[in-house]
């Protein structure tokens, strides 16, 4: 087994003779290690090979509404990671929901809670992430989604539901059967107000949330989620109503569409842990660095990763999701501290979202 010393120091020596890219290709770990731990003599501070400080994230740009075919869209760029998100609504008549129940078994729950369950029960949110666009050499098309792509999709899906970002009530298309002919006016309403007892749900909007990576340079989840969040906030569903005669939902461009009301600003913040010793099997781990917003090279060199999703809108910071795996460096204290870092990132991202 390679002893830890031999992975570190000797490999560093030839670095003087190699050009940086060659050194990076040949022995990436020592390359990053060297740059992170400059010898005490020199005054240079600990920097990553991408020139960032360990706790420095890449600036984030967010543009929304650039796609005309989608009902909502966003383009997110952090460094060399670029992802596009398109949200498109399609209609799902209740008749084509086999397990649909007009009065679900959870009447006791309030309407909002009910709507939230509908989202999950009827699969009204459908996020998918496409990596096989040649966005990086390892992601070429013509292959089924990689484990990474599937994992990302699942994480987005889970966070969508657990954070209750979308209000399920926005996705209902309701209809009030008309008894006396004079209140035909009531038909015109798109069922957003309170006397819902007479109204019945005729269909649901299904939101297809498709993410496409144009360029991939690490930390896909943060970028992807930012895109989802921005795109959903940009989403306007066409005004739709149930046409009893034609037994179908009819949309119109005459009335102005329905803007989704998106609850909260959950923003993820990811980091990877870089270990001084390539051999992590020892108890004493030696030094380590927590690299915020890791790039592609760093991700290949780090085993342990953490993602914390926070929402700082209220007076108290709420954590909406916490995922840490693949290592044992990040203990209780470090994670506590990292939530603070996440709060910082939250401000940047929310600002970028405008």
């Amino acid at each position, binding site marked *: 087994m390679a002893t830890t010393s031999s992975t570190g120091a000797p490999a560093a020596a030839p670095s003087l003779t190699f050009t940086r890219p060659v050194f990076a290709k040949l022995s990436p770990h020592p390359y990053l290690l060297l740059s992170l731990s400059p010898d005490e003599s020199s005054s240079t501070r600990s920097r990553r090979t991408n020139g960032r400080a360990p706790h420095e994230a890449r600036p984030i740009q967010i543009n929304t509404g650039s*796609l*005309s*075919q*989608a009902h909502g*869209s966003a383009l997110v760029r952090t460094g*060399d990671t*670029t992802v*596009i998100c*398109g*949200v*498109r*609504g*399609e*209609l*799902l*008549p209740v008749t*084509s*929901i*086999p397990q649909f129940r007009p009065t679900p078994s959870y009447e006791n729950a309030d309407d909002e809670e009910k709507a939230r369950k509908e989202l999950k029960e*009827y*699969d*009204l949110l*459908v*996020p*998918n992430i*496409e990596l096989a*666009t*040649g*966005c*990086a*050499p390892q992601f*070429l*098309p*013509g292959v*089924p*989604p990689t484990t990474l*792509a*599937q994992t990302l*999709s*699942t994480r987005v*899906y889970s966070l969508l539901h657990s954070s209750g970002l979308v209000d399920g009530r926005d996705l209902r298309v309701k209809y009030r059967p008309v008894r006396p002919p004079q209140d035909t006016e009531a038909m015109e309403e798109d069922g957003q107000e309170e006397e819902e007892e007479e109204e019945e749900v005729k269909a649901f909007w*299904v939101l*297809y949330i*498709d993410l*496409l990576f*144009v*360029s*991939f*340079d690490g930390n896909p989840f943060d970028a992807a989620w930012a895109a989802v969040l921005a795109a959903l906030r940009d989403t306007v569903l*066409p005004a*739709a109503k149930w046409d009893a005669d034609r037994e*179908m*939902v*009819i*949309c*119109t*461009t*005459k009335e102005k569409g329905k803007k989704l009301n998106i609850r909260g600003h959950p923003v993820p913040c990811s980091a990877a842990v870089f270990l001084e010793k390539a051999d992590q099997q020892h108890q004493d781990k030696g030094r380590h660095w927590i690299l915020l917003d890791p790039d*592609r090279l760093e991700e290949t060199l780090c085993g342990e990763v953490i993602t914390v999703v926070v929402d700082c809108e209220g007076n108290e910071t709420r954590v909406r999701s916490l995922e840490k795996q693949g290592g044992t460096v990040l203990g209780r204290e470090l994670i506590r501290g990292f939530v603070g870092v996440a709060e910082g990132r939250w401000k940047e991202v929310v600002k970028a979202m405008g």
Partner: protein
Amino acid sequence: MADRRRINGPAGATIPPVFDEDGKQYEHKVAKIRDRAPTAIRKMFLKTGVTPSASGSAYLEYESSAKSGVSGLKLSCTVHGPRSLPRSSPFSPHIVLSTHVKYAPFATKQRRGYLRDPSERDLGTHLETALRGAIIADRWPKSGVDIIISIIEGDQDRETSKFQGDETWDMMNALSGCITVASAALADAGIDCVDTVAGGVAALVQDTSDDSTPRIVLDPIPSEHEKILGACCVAYLPIRDEVTNLWFKGDLPASDIDLYTKLVESGIQASRNGNRVLVECLGETVA
């Protein structure tokens, strides 16, 4: 059976929104008439190096015309290689091109699936022939290069093409865009070409507005015309004055014999314009 590697959504089929305006559409279609001169092509925005980790990459966007609902074409292309072919594949004296064109699910009016459909495969084959003529293939024996294009937004109108039915006209615009953007990406990847190939589209259209005499227009937008009689998409090498790929569709009135040649020539003209943008962009990056 559902794709177990993706999140599939509801079991029952979902329906894209139906608008009450549909059907009445046809009458006031004439309203949005082409405001460009027949020989003018839309403004293009081309940028290379959008995907740094790829050997070469480029992004192309057509200026979306004034009318709302009409989106400009948006394309992103990455080039990977040249790299050695996998052991399994047979010896090849020249470089092996593999082109892959895919519409993003949100690119068109109808949501696209993740699996490639025939039209996307067609685009891929057309693109390959168009490029093969431009690349100096035998400079890279035993190696292959992947050219991947994502159509982020199709060149399509929200309402139309239900009426013109045929989506081919849109595909032609898409193809010419693909050729131009791929050519830029190849140059960015430093893969030797005899010349910079670019795509161009010309169509023979018929509009009541100009007493429905057929006329040839460059870079047509199907929705701006009532009837498209025929169109062609050419991939053209300006310096060598060669056409590497030609795709023609439609039926031309037999009355005018050299109408076909006219059409192709205007196609070439369109491609020249495209080429100008291309060279400009490359010039910047080199400088």
